[in-house]
């Protein structure tokens, strides 16, 4: 049914990474779209990216009519995102028209219309054969006007005119009190309305996007987190949570016979997810590094998220037990990404992960530890995020390994992370330190391994200069 809809309803790419998925194909072609949000939420950038990507990827020239920033300011502001407006202007692919309105100069002396604006816009569109238009922020016209009745009907006419002109337009609007835009533009643009939001929750800034309305089209209804970075705006599509991913029966190894042999098939399934739990200092990171190196030896790239150690520290520490991560980093097989969990919101981390995955195309992803992400959000959010994360990894057939720091509790099932992750994970390895005769004894226990038998007792091990060794009695 959805496919039929797409056929009868032409859409055009939004130029925003991830948004085409959410809107099932993009913006309605040749219709106006309203983007609203409060100051600083990224409206202008959103609109500019729509134009620039339209030019670069769809070869659709664009007109940017700016009611606020000057052409020079705009060029400067988006340069950091790699958008070279001046070059696009030179190529006659982009036209920026700054509409400057000096309120102090203006006197209203009778009935007026916006025909002058229409003519300018029409001229700009025709001069480069534009297919995309941005009006940012058309509501500025209302500022300081005594009589807005004429203006309102003219704005309505403007939207109709844009439709008739056959351009896909983005109109931005400032969020009003109790309404989407200050002057109720949403009443006029009835096809597609998108709300951008910028919130601070627990001192962490989160940007979110929501499709308020999209007439005649199915669309995602959730709030989607989005990120503004050096590549512009990207939205994280929440993949539909379908359990229809492939399940390979090939096996992968830890490159540690001692561990592999604990599993009935001498390894774990490719594309499965593994959870390693343990209290502080139980060698979770070491085991994760073995897993990473095993992947490197198979020439399968690894993305290692380290939330507690910097890449250099991780490399140095593991070298002391003979694990050489650096040469893998140099060979581009291992990519270590370190950041403080509290630096960004939970979803931003997921988005970063998503982006790095697209860029690096890893076959193995390690998150060390996943429990530090959990401190960032509340538990329902965390669970939703983990499900999304697992799904994303599964769909891509990525071997996933998460470590999780558990508190020193009798019952680790009460631990938030363990509760959230353990049921989702395919394999679960628990590491512990037990005090035996005034000595800490390291233990490893396989709690679960979906789809295969496993050794079900505790094994003692030690970490020596040569690495991981099982202690045989």
């Amino acid at each position: 049914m959805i496919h039929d809809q797409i056929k009868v309803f032409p859409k055009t790419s939004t130029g925003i990474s991830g948004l085409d998925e959410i809107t099932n194909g993009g913006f309605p072609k040749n219709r106006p779209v309203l983007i609203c949000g409060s100051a600083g939420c990224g409206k202008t950038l959103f609109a500019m990216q729509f134009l620039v990507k339209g030019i670069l990827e769809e070869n659709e020239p664009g007109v940017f009519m700016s009611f606020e920033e000057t052409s020079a300011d705009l060029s400067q502001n988006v340069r950091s995102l790699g958008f070279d407006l001046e070059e696009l202007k030179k190529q006659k692919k982009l036209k920026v028209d700054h509409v400057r309105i000096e309120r102090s100069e203006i006197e209203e002396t009778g009935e007026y219309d916006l025909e002058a604006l229409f003519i300018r816009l029409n001229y700009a569109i025709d001069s480069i054969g534009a297919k995309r238009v941005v009006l940012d922020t058309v509501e500025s016209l209302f500022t300081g006007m005594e009589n807005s009745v004429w203006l309102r009907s003219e704005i309505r006419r403007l939207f109709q005119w844009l439709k008739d002109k056959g351009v896909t337009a983005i109109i931005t609007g400032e969020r009003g009190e109790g309404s989407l835009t200050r002057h109720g533009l949403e009443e006029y643009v009835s096809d597609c309305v998108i709300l951008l939001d910028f919130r601070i929750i627990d001192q962490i800034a989160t940007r979110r996007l929501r499709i308020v309305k999209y007439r005649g089209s199915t669309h995602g209804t959730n709030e989607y987190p989005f990120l503004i970075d050096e590549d512009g705006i990207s939205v994280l599509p929440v993949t539909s949570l379908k359990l229809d991913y492939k399940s390979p029966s090939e096996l992968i190894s830890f490159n540690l016979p001692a561990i592999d042999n604990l599993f009935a098939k001498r390894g774990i399934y490719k594309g499965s997810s593994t959870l390693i739990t343990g209290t502080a200092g139980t060698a979770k990171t070491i085991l994760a590094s073995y897993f990473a190196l095993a992947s490197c030896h198979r020439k399968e790239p690894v993305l290692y998220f380290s939330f507690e150690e910097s890449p250099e520290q991780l490399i140095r520490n593991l070298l002391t037990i003979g694990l050489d991560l650096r040469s893998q980093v140099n060979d581009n097989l291992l990519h270590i990404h370190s950041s403080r969990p509290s630096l960004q919101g939970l979803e931003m981390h997921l988005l970063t992960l998503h982006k790095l995955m697209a860029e690096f195309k890893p076959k193995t992803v390690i998150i060390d530890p996943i429990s530090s992400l959990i401190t960032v959000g509340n538990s329902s959010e965390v669970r939703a995020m983990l499900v999304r994360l697992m799904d994303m990894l599964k769909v891509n057939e990525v071997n996933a390994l998460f470590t999780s720091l558990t508190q020193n509790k009798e019952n680790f099932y009460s631990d938030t992370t363990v509760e959230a992750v353990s049921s989702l994970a395919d394999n679960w390895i628990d590491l512990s330190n037990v005090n035996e005769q005034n000595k800490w004894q390291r233990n490893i226990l396989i709690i679960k391994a979906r789809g295969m038998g496993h050794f079900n007792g505790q094994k003692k091990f030690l970490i020596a200069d040569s690495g991981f060794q099982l202690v045989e009695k």
Partner: protein
Amino acid sequence: MNKDENIKMVAEGKLVLQLYVSGMSANSMVAIENIKHLCDEHLEGAFQLEIIDIYKNPDLAAEEHIVFSPSLIKHFPLPRKTLIGNLSDTDKVVKALGLKIKGAS
């Protein structure tokens, strides 16, 4: 001020005006009539009035930042003013153009 009263007015210097209209639209025609009447019947002294059709000169309209139509720009004497609308509110027009009744202090 009543349009038909025979009041003479002066500006503080030579008036330089540009009226931007959108073709033959109703508001444009009313504006042209209003400004012509004011200048021809009531203004004593030098003035320069140029009527520009935005349709024919979209470039010029963009340069002068014309958004509303019709728009009357007073370039001189300074300060620059933009009078938008069909110029039917004569008192506002007179005030914005800085005109004074001749002989009045």
